[in-house]
């Protein structure tokens, strides 16, 4: 039972790392602050929760697993709220949407 759980946990951790890397690529490549925020926070919340759930078999005992579950629940509630606050601040400051320029697709 436990080696199977650890194997699944390892897969989950690697999936989480992949999603976090995808979020960082989104932050680098998207053209506008709103799209960067969207791609970054969606993928990063998913990746963080995958890593935390995948780390639960490795945590050693029920106390560590509960603590990881608590961090995951807190992430699920707080990370979207922080992104909402940043997006609303950008909107209030009237940061204009930049039109996507086809010739400058490779602009980092």
């Amino acid at each position, binding site marked *: 039972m436990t080696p199977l759980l650890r194997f699944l946990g390892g897969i989950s951790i690697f999936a989480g790392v992949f999603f976090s890397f995808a979020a*960082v690529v989104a*932050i680098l490549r998207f053209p506008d*602050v709103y799209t*960067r925020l969207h791609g970054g926070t969606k993928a990063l919340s998913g990746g963080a929760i995958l890593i935390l759930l995948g780390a639960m078999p490795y945590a050693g005992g029920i106390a560590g697993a509960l603590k990881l579950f608590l961090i995951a629940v807190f992430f699920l509630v707080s*990370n979207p709220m*922080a992104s909402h*606050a940043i997006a609303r601040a950008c909107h*209030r400051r009237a940061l204009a949407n930049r039109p996507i320029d086809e010739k400058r697709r490779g602009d980092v």
Partner: protein
Amino acid sequence: MILAALWGMVISGLLGFVRVVTGPSPADRLVAADALSVIFTMVLVLLSLYIETPFLLDVALAFSMLSFADMLLMAKYFEHGELHK
């Protein structure tokens, strides 16, 4: 194996920091800093598994709470220019 995941997260952190350096407005840098705080919370969690110190999970939980507070403070400052509006 966890060491490979750790290296993956830290490399992602370095790439996210590129956006902090380049991004033309402070809003881009704020977005990247938000992502970096989540990434480094995960680095702390993976570190607690790697060096088998269970107390680092407390550090990860406290840091996730306080980086959330940090992002709210900086969003408020970016919106109004002052913190007590």
